[in-house]
C-alpha cells in the first residue's frame, strides 16, 4: 500500500467514526472560544505576535552560536549536554545515562520529541519501566495509542472511554465516569510512582542560552515532579527550541499559554538551571539535556521553509483546522498532526514518505491567522504541494520532492495552463465547454466518489453578462 492509499484508508476510518468526530468537535469548539477570550484587543494580539515572531526568528538566525552558548552555560551550571542526530542516537544516549545511574524506573513528563524517537518503546524493550505522568499521556499509554494532539494527547477520548480504561487496568478502584473522581484516581495511582522513580524524563518548551535555563510549561505538576523528585533528570528537546535571552521568555510564555489552551498563564512555569547544589535538600543530583536534530537542520537550507522552525508547539493551528476537526490526529499517521504536521513532517521525514499529508488542507488560512509566531502555514503547505509534484520552476529542496508527480495529471495541468494563459484560447475553450456540456464524463476520480459530476452551464458567464448589458472588458 503506498502512502496515499494508506492515508485515505485512515481518513475513511476516521470519517466513519461518529463518536470520534463528536469528541473532537466538542473539545475543539471549547478551546477556540477560550483562546479568543484571551485576545480581546486585536492590536495587542498582533503586537504580541510580532514580538514572539521576532524572538523566534532571531533565535533561528543565530541558532548555531546560541546552541554553543547554551551548551557552555549549561555545562558551567553543571547540566550535561548531549547531541543526537536521530532517534536511535537519542534513545541510546538516554538508555546509557539510565544504565550508568542504575535507574530502572522512569517517570515521564510530556514530550513530543520523545514521541519522535519512540523512546518509551525503546526503553521498555531494554527492561526499563516507563510511566507517563501527564494525565492525557497516561490515558493513551494505557490504551497503547499515540497522542492525537500535541497539547491534549487524549483529546479523542471521552469520559466513558477513559473510565473504562481505568477500570480495566485498576479493577480494584470502583468504576466512575465522573471527571473529578477520575482525576483523583490518576493522582492516587501516579503519586507512588513519583515517590519511587529513579529518573525523570521531560521535554523543554524554551532553552535559554543566556543563562542556561530549561523552561517547562504545565498545569498538572507532573512536570515539576518528574524533574524534581527522582535523583536523575533527563530533558530531551529539538535543536530549534533554543532562544537567546531570558527577557525573550515573557512574550513567548504569554502567547503560548493563551494560544494553546486559552489560559492567561499555566499553573506552573518551571525554570531549571542547575542540578542539586551542595546544601540543597532535594532536586536531582544529575541533570542532562539531549539535543535532537532529526531532520531539523536540513530545513534551514531554504529561507521560506525555515519559518516552519519558529513553531512553539501551542497547537492553535490544529485547533482551528477544519480538516483536523473532522479527522482527528491519528489519521495523519505522523507524530505531529494538523497544519503544523503537514508543514513539518514532509520536510523532516520526506515527501516520498508522507507528502500526501499536504492534500489534507483546504487552504482556508485559519492556521496562519492564529499562529502566535506568524508561520505562514498555508503558504508553506502550498509550497510543499508544489515540491511534491515538482511544480516549482526551480529550487526544490525537500527530500523526496517530485515523488508524487503523476504524468497524466501533469499533462492535464499543462493543458490547462496553455488554455488559461491565452485569452483567445480560453474563450474558445469555455464556449466549447458550454456547448458540448453533454460530453462531461459522469466519473471524475475522487471528486465523484461522494458527489455528482458538475456540468458546465449552457451559456458562459461572459455571454450572460453581455446580455445584461455589461461591456466585455
Amino acid at each position, binding site marked *: 500500500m503506498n502512502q496515499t492509499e494508506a492515508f485515505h484508508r485512515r481518513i475513511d476510518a476516521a470519517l466513519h467514526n461518529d463518536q470520534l468526530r463528536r469528541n473532537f468537535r466538542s*473539545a475543539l469548539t471549547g478551546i477556540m472560544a477560550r483562546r479568543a477570550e484571551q485576545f480581546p484587543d486585536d492590536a495587542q494580539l498582533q503586537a504580541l505576535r510580532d514580538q514572539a515572531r521576532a524572538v523566534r526568528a532571531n533565535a533561528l538566525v543565530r541558532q548555531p552560536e546560541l546552541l554553543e552558548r547554551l551548551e557552555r552555560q549549561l555545562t558551567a551550571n553543571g547540566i550535561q549536554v548531549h547531541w543526537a542526530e536521530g532517534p536511535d542516537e537519542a534513545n541510546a544516549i538516554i538508555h546509557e545515562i539510565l544504565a550508568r545511574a542504575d535507574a530502572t524506573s522512569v517517570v515521564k513528563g510530556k514530550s513530543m520529541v520523545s514521541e519522535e524517537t519512540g523512546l518509551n518503546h525503546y526503553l521498555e524493550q531494554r527492561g526499563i519501566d516507563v510511566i507517563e505522568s501527564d494525565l492525557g499521556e497516561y490515558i493513551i499509554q494505557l490504551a497503547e495509542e499515540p497522542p492525537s494532539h500535541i497539547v491534549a494527547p487524549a483529546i479523542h477520548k471521552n*469520559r466513558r472511554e477513559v473510565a473504562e480504561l481505568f477500570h480495566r487496568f485498576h479493577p480494584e478502584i470502583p468504576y466512575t465516569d465522573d471527571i473529578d473522581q477520575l482525576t*483523583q484516581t490518576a493522582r492516587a495511582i501516579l503519586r507512588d510512582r513519583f515517590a519511587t522513580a529513579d529518573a525523570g524524563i521531560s521535554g523543554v518548551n524554551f532553552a535559554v542560552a543566556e543563562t542556561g535555563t530549561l523552561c517547562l510549561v504545565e498545569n498538572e505538576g507532573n512536570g515539576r515532579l518528574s524533574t524534581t523528585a527522582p535523583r536523575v533528570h533527563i530533558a530531551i528537546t529539538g535543536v530549534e527550541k533554543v532562544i537567546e535571552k531570558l527577557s525573550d521568555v515573557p512574550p513567548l510564555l504569554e502567547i503560548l499559554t493563551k494560544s494553546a489552551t486559552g489560559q492567561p498563564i499555566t499553573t*506552573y512555569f518551571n525554570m531549571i538551571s542547575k542540578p542539586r547544589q551542595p546544601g540543597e535538600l532535594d532536586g536531582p543530583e544529575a541533570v542532562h539535556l539531549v539535543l535532537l*536534530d532529526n531532520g531539523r537542520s536540513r530545513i534551514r537550507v531554504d*529561507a521560506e521553509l525555515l519559518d516552519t522552525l519558529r513553531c512553539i508547539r501551542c497547537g492553535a493551528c490544529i485547533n482551528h483546522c477544519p480538516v483536523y476537526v473532522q479527522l482527528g490526529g491519528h489519521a495523519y499517521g505522523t507524530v505531529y498532526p494538523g497544519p503544523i504536521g503537514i508543514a513539518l513532517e514532509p520536510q523532516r521525514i520526506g515527501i516520498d514518505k508522507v507528502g500526501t499529508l499536504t492534500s489534507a488542507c483546504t487552504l482556508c488560512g485559519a492556521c496562519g491567522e492564529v499562529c502566535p509566531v506568524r508561520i505562514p502555514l498555508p503558504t508553506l503547505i502550498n509550497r510543499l504541494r508544489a515540491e511534491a509534484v515538482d511544480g516549482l520552476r526551480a529550487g526544490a529542496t525537500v527530500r523526496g520532492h517530485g515523488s508524487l508527480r503523476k504524468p497524466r495529471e501533469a499533462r492535464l495541468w499543462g493543458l490547462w495552463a496553455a488554455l488559461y494563459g491565452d485569452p483567445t484560447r480560453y474563450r474558445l475553450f469555455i464556449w466549447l465547454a458550454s456547448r458540448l456540456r453533454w460530453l462531461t464524463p459522469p466519473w471524475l476520480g475522487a471528486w465523484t466518489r461522494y458527489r455528482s459530476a458538475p456540468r458546465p452551464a449552457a451559456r458562459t458567464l461572459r455571454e450572460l453578462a453581455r446580455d445584461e448589458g455589461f461591456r466585455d472588458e
Partner: protein
Amino acid sequence: MSDSRQRILDRLRANRPTDVPTPMVYAKALGWDRERCIAAFSERMQAVRGEVHRMQRDAWVGWLSQQLPERGLHRVLVGNGRIGDALAAVAAQPLQVRRYDRPIESWKPELFGDIDVAVTGARAGLAESGSLVLWPDAEEPRLMSLVPPVHVALLDADRLYENFAALIVAEHWGDGMPTNALLISGPSKTADIEQTLAYGIHGPKELVTLLLE
C-alpha cells in the same frame, strides 16, 4: 557523540539565514499602582481557585494557628528559615510542625504520605497573571510547594510586580539563575479529559496566598 555535535553545528552554520533585527526587550508597562496590583493579583488567583487573604504583616502566625486546625491540616511542613521558626514557636496541639531539614532521600515516603500542608515564603508576585514567584533553596526546598496537598505561601505585598517582564528586568534575572525558579498560578489542574477543568491532579489541591501588608 561529539561527531554528531559537529555535524549538526556544521549543517546549521552552512546555511545561515538572512539576518533579522535583534528583538526589543518586551516591556508591557501597565502603570498600575499598589492597590491595582493587589486587586489584579487577587482576582486572577481566585479565578483559578487560589485563595488570597490580605492581612497585617505580623498577623499570619495567628491566622495559621487558627485556620490550619480548623481545616483539619495538622501536619505542617516548614523550612529552616524564620517562617519555620515563627510557626514552630507558637504551634500547639493539634498542630505538628515538621521541618524540611534532611535530604529528601531519607524521608521521601513521609513527605509524600504524611504531610497535610506546607508553608513557604514567596520571592515576589505577579499582578497581571496572578502568579507567585518562588526561588526554592536549601532553606525552603523545591518539593515543599509541590508535594503536600495544600500549599500556603506568604507574599509581601511590596513585592508585587505588574508582570513577569517587569520582574525579570528589575531583578536582572539574565545575569544568572538559581537552581530552580518557579511561577505558580493556582492549584494544580488538568483538562485532559473532555477539556473539562479538574483541580488537584498531581501538585497541591489548594493554594493559599497570605498577602502581607
